[in-house]
Every structure is written in structure tokens, then in C-alpha cells.
């Protein structure tokens, strides 16, 4: 038994030596650290840990995940902004890092980070209870126009609320009250018991209720129909121009060298094509949405500008 272990160890060392010599250029580093503001088991954490399994071989480096929680992401932002721009440390972007930058006054904001590439988007859908009288988004909007509508968003300063406010304006549904909550679970109860007409959430979040046939999805805010829900129309196709891309990507410290960015632009599409990974992320309703570096910076900028305008308009910030 001991002999076996020794052999296995020697073999592993050999492989390690081989892979080290194979990647004898400047980048990648031996170890790449991916930082998330989410705690262990949270959305971004699961995203990074799944990704890191496949990224290690694609990037030719040891990829580890570190949770820097607290301050709604401000701590993680500060850590990244002061880290060396040598490609050894990255951050998992989500709309949270924009919201935190705009809402509070953190020492480092999204402007201090360099967006690298985007990996996924989480589709946002609008749903209602299975036994509710609404069979389409139009029925919900008509009800809100004629009488009174109650539309639920998980958090007050969130993309979900922003989407509902935009839909309300686009549809001219002035009697729709947008009810905010302390998270998706809270809101789900109120949709299920009929307090709310509809709620907005990520497909992943509402999956278990969907499988149990407790809710029905009326429309999706994605730009195209969803593979897993082919019968669900997009909000845009129903005549309301409200589209969201809730992004999940990678950002690093400012001033990343070109070879680092090139390595990521090569690695991410490669990982996304990995059949094993594809099966895993398709099952959890993540849509691959690779955005190369040249487009990702402007994408984040416009997302931030739109969010800032919304937060100002709704009186959250001045």
C-alpha cells in the first residue's frame, strides 16, 4: 500500500514538473486567486468554484477561490484595487459590485478595476403563482392599469427593481406598486400566497418552485428565449423594450498586461465548450455569454451609467 502511494506521488510530481516546463512563459502564474464577495455557498462562490475546476487545466495554473466578504463587496473591491496587476488575482463581477460602488462610498469602486471578460448571464424572469388568474404578462399589466398591481422585487437597490420600474414606465402601468423585500425567499412566499401579482428573479432561484409546478413563468428579460423554457416569450417580443443582462464575469486590478488578458480570452471560451462543464452550467440555467475584453469594459460602463441614472431617478442616491 505504501509502495503504491509512493509511486502515485512520484507520478504526480512528474506530471507537475512536466506541466511546469510546458508553461514556462511569463503567464500564467503558478497560482491564480479568484476573489468573491459572496460567502461560501453563495451564488458567486458556487460559480467560481465550479469554474475553477475546469479553469485550472485551461489556464495551466492552480486556480483557488477566496471569499472576501463584508461591506456588500466593498472589502473585496478594496483588496483587488490594491493588488498587483500581474494576473495572479481576479474578482468575480456581478451587478452587486456596481450597486455597492454607487450606493456607498467605498474606498475603491468599479472604476478602479479592469473588466477582463464576461462568462455568463443569469436570465431574469417574471413569474406568478400557479393558481393566479394571470395567464400572460399582458394580463398582469392590464390589471395594474385598470385596478392596482403589486409587483415584487427581491431587494430595494437591485437590478430586479430596476427592471420592474422600467417595465412600469414602458407599459404606462401607473397603478403598479413595486414591493421590495429582504431577499428572494421572502418574496417567493408573497407570490405563492397571492399577496403579489408577480415577482422577478433569476431562473436558478425559482427553479424548485417551478419544478413543483407552484409557479408559472410569464416572460423573460433576456434578449432571446431560454433553452430550458422554450415556451416563455421575451418581454421585448411582447412590445416592452426592457432587456437585462445580469452578468457574471472576471475583473482584475487596473493595468493588466496584454498577455494576461489574451490568456483569459483564450481560456474562457475553451472552458465554456468543455462538455462536462457545459452539462453542469446548463443544468443550473446559466447562459454562456462570453464578452471579449474590448467589449467588456464599455459593457460595464454602460451598465453602470444606466444603474446610476435609475438610482438617481428613484431617489436612492443624489
Amino acid at each position, binding site marked *: 500500500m505504501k509502495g503504491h502511494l509512493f509511486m502515485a506521488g512520484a507520478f504526480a510530481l512528474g506530471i507537475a514538473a512536466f506541466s511546469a516546463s510546458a508553461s514556462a512563459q511569463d503567464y500564467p502564474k503558478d497560482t491564480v486567486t479568484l476573489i468573491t464577495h459572496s460567502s461560501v455557498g453563495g451564488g458567486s462562490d458556487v460559480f467560481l468554484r465550479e469554474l475553477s475546476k475546469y479553469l485550472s487545466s485551461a489556464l495551466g495554473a492552480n486556480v483557488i477561490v477566496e471569499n472576501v466578504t*463584508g461591506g*456588500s463587496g466593498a472589502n473585496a473591491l478594496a483588496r483587488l484595487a490594491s493588488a498587483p496587476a500581474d494576473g495572479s488575482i481576479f474578482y468575480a463581477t456581478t451587478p452587486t459590485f456596481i450597486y455597492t460602488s454607487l450606493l456607498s462610498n*467605498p474606498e475603491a469602486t468599479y472604476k478602479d478595476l479592469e473588466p477582463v471578460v464576461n462568462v455568463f448571464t443569469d436570465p431574469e424572469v417574471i413569474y406568478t403563482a400557479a393558481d393566479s388568474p394571470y395567464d400572460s404578462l399582458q394580463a398582469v399589466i392590464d390589471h395594474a392599469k385598470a385596478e392596482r398591481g403589486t409587483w415584487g422585487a427581491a431587494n430595494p437597490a437591485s437590478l430586479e427593481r430596476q427592471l420592474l420600474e422600467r417595465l412600469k414606465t414602458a407599459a404606462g402601468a401607473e397603478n403598479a406598486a413595486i414591493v421590495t423585500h429582504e431577499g428572494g*425567499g421572502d418574496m417567493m412566499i408573497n407570490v405563492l400566497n397571492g399577496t403579489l401579482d408577480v415577482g422577478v428573479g433569476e431562473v436558478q432561484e425559482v427553479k424548485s*418552485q417551478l419544478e413543483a409546478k407552484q409557479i408559472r413563468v410569464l416572460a423573460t428579460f433576456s434578449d432571446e428565449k431560454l433553452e430550458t423554457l422554450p415556451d416563455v416569450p421575451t418581454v421585448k417580443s411582447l412590445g416592452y423594450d426592457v432587456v437585462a443582462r445580469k452578468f457574471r464575469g472576471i475583473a482584475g486590478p487596473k493595468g493588466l498586461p496584454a498577455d494576461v488578458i489574451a490568456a483569459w480570452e483564450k481560456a474562457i471560451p475553451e472552458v465554456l465548450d468543455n462538455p462536462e462543464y457545459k452539462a453542469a452550467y446548463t443544468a443550473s440555467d446559466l447562459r454562456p455569454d462570453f464578452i471579449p475584453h474590448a467589449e467588456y469594459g464599455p459593457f460595464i460602463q454602460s451598465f453602470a451609467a444606466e444603474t446610476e441614472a435609475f438610482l438617481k431617478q428613484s431617489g*436612492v442616491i443624489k
Partner: protein
Amino acid sequence: MDTLAQSIQILFTTPAILMASVGVAWGILGGALPGLSPSITMALLLPFTYALDPTSAIILLASTYVGAEYGGSIPAILIRTPGTNAAAATVIDGYEMNRKGKAGLALGISLYSGVIGSLFGLVMLVVLSEPLARIALSFRPPSYFALGILGLSVIVTLSGGSLVKGMIAGIFGLMVATVGTDPVTGGNRFTFGTAELLGGIEPVLVMVGLFAVSELLVQATQKDAPIRVESKARIQFPGWKLAKRLLPSQMIGNVVGTFEGIMPGAGGTVASFIAYNEAKRWSRHKEEFGKGSPEGIAAPETANNTVSATAIIPLLAFGIPGSNSTAVLLGGFLIHGITVGPMIFVKSAAVVHGLYGGLLVASIAQLAIGMAMMGPCIWLVNRPRAYLNAFIFALIFSGVFSIHQSLFDLGLVLAAGVVGFIMRLLNIPFLPTVLGLVLGFLVESNYRRALVISGGDHSIFVTDPISLGFLTVATLFVLGSVGKPFFAKMRKPRLS
């Protein structure tokens, strides 16, 4: 029956017994360290569950929850500092019993009440998972508001001597609860531009400061602390007669714990206080409460351990975590790619049955492991005060720091400690502050949310039947407690 057979079978096919025992031991340790809440104790284990199979991982986490709810009572009794929020009610009589030299008995009562609570909670979890969770589903924002008001009404009986001081303490707690993000508009309130305050002030930090730090400050002002635990104190289980006396209060704990566990947002802390209060109301020895009543330990400790099992009910039935601890448990499920919700009973039945079996082992292991860990705990409190205080101080601060690695949190704890010290000097009780802090956000956000839904019409609070029921009970409760002296006065002349 099928469930039972499968649960027992799973016990022998996975290292469930080992996982449950490790979970309970770690839970007791974490629960006993002031500053480490059950959810944090569980969260510290999460990274290690990646390597386990799903059933083992879930058993480990759920058992940690069971152990932590019991562990919280150890420092509550021994050093007047609740190790967990839910053990705050145990401090009242537990510490008084300790002062009377009955620490061993107090710990024994807490332990076996905890075991009763866990076992009862487990039965409820298995039997009621689906039917009872429907009650939680019919809770609307006005119902939650009324639930919070009912919780706050307990302040009337927690105030001790002066109702005015109790109100001051309670309102202070409510004020602290407004710090953070506005629940409706999302704007910042009293955050002074710091990102650390965006999420509000965590009750656990304030509690550690109020209870633990202020106690250390008080002890530092005393020349030689006269309080010493009997060095021979050993864990001691109550005799038959006392056990019979405790039974009603444990039943109250079971029932309260079941209801509070099922209702998201309520949790072990509220359950303990309500159970304490109800046990006092129905007790034949009311006068002993606050002076070292064994029932005052049995009721809250049964309640919070019951919650550790029943809180899982809404998680399994809806995928909705009702507390921080069950949110961490949900994280454990998600890590292993299990979607939690009604379909879990079909798609991942093995994990659910494993969870039931594991909790059974944990409840029983709690007794043995609890006793084994008691010796070291009692030895610890018999060390010279100065050493002990320094040790506790280090423990508290390392515990608090481990939550977010934040120096800001340490400052917050110290500030709360100074506030607590001043409150002690002025004889203002802490418990109303804690209640205000825990319930303030629930009350405020649901009040405002209900009004957004109704379009500003306050009648929503009486047209919602659950809300009406809670508000009525709360009103009667306050009138009954406040009015008591008046009723007594009215009766006296008639008697004489």
C-alpha cells in the same frame, strides 16, 4: 414507516454516526464561544463539506446546529454571557443558579432539556414537514408585522423593576435596528458613508458587546470577584421530583419552538423568550423566576433546541431559509447541486432521509458529548478570574474577527460593551434592547411593505386574519401585564 426504515438504513451505509458526533462536538464548542453564532459555526465548516458526499455534508451541518443551540447555554450559565442569541433568555435564571452554587444542576437541566427539544423537534420535522409549512405560506407582510409586535410586547415582562427603563432599552434597540439600508427605498440610513454599515448592525455583535464585554468591564472594577463556582461542581441531572416539575415548562418549550421554527424570521431567540415568558406565566413557582428557577432554564433551552430541527421545515418544504443557520444549511445543499424545495422529497429522498437519521443520532450524541465536554468547561470557569477574563476577552475578539475579518466589527463590539457598562450602572435591562434590535427590522420593513401593498391604507392590519389575531394577543398581553398592579389594588380593599 417507509421513511423511518430508510432513515435507519442510511445510518449504516454512510459515516452518519461519525458526522453527527463531530457536528455536535463542533457545534457545542462554537455555541459555547461567545461571538460564534450557530450560523457562523456552521459556516466555518462549509468549506470542508465540498469533499464530503451530500448526505454526510448535510448531517454534519445540521448536527452542528443542534450542538450549537445547546452549547450557547454553557457560558450563559457559567459566565453570564450567552454563547448564542437564543441562549440570552437562559442567562436570567441560569446565572442566578450558578451564583447559588448550583451550576452543575443548571447545566444538567439545560443539557437534558436540549435533548428533549431536539428529539421533539425531529419528530415534528418528520411528521409535519409538509402540512405545517402551509401555515407559514399564508403569512403576508401584515402578519409578519403583527408577529414582530407580539415579540416586542414581551418587553413589558422583561423590564424587571421599571417599565420606563425597559421601554428606553427597547426603543434604543429599535433605533439601532434602523442603521443600514432602507428596506423600501434602498437608501443609506445612518451609515456615515461607511460600507461596513450598509448591511446594518449585526445583532450578534451588539449582544457580544452588551453581555460579554460589559461583564468583563464590571468584573475588572471589582477587587476580587466573589463569585466562584464550586470546584467540585459536576454535571448533575435533576432528580425525579424536579424532573416532574420541569415537564410542563419543557412542553411549553416544545410547542413554542415548533411554531417559531416553522415561521421564517422568528427563530430560536424569539422562541426562547416566548417560552421563558409562557413558562413563567403557567408556573406554580412564579416567584422563583429571575432568582434561579430551574424552569427558567428548561423552557428556553427546550425551545431553542426544538427550533434547531423545526427551522428546517420551511427550508425543505419551500426552499425558503427562515434563519441565518438554515441559510447556511441551504448553502450546503447548493454546494452539492441539490435544489431545495418541495421536489427534494422526490429527487433527493436519500439525502432527506439521511438528514432525519443524522439528526436522530445527533440528538442522542448530544447527551454523551455534552457530558464529556462539561468537565473541561467547569474546570475552565474555576480558573483564577484574571486569567479567565483575559482568555475570554481573547476568545471573544478572535471569534468576532473571524466573522468578517473586520476591525470595524471589533470597534462596534467595544462600543456596545461601553454602552452595556453604562446601562448596568443605570440599572437599565439589556434584554429589551436585544429584542428591539432583533425585531426592529422585521417590524419596520413589513409595516412599510404592507402599506405599499395596500396603497397606504392601514386597515390591512385588521383585515388580515393572522395579523388581527397576533395584534389582539399582544394587546391583551400588554394590558394584562401593565394592568396587573391596578387589578391587585382594586381587589385589596375588597379583601380587607
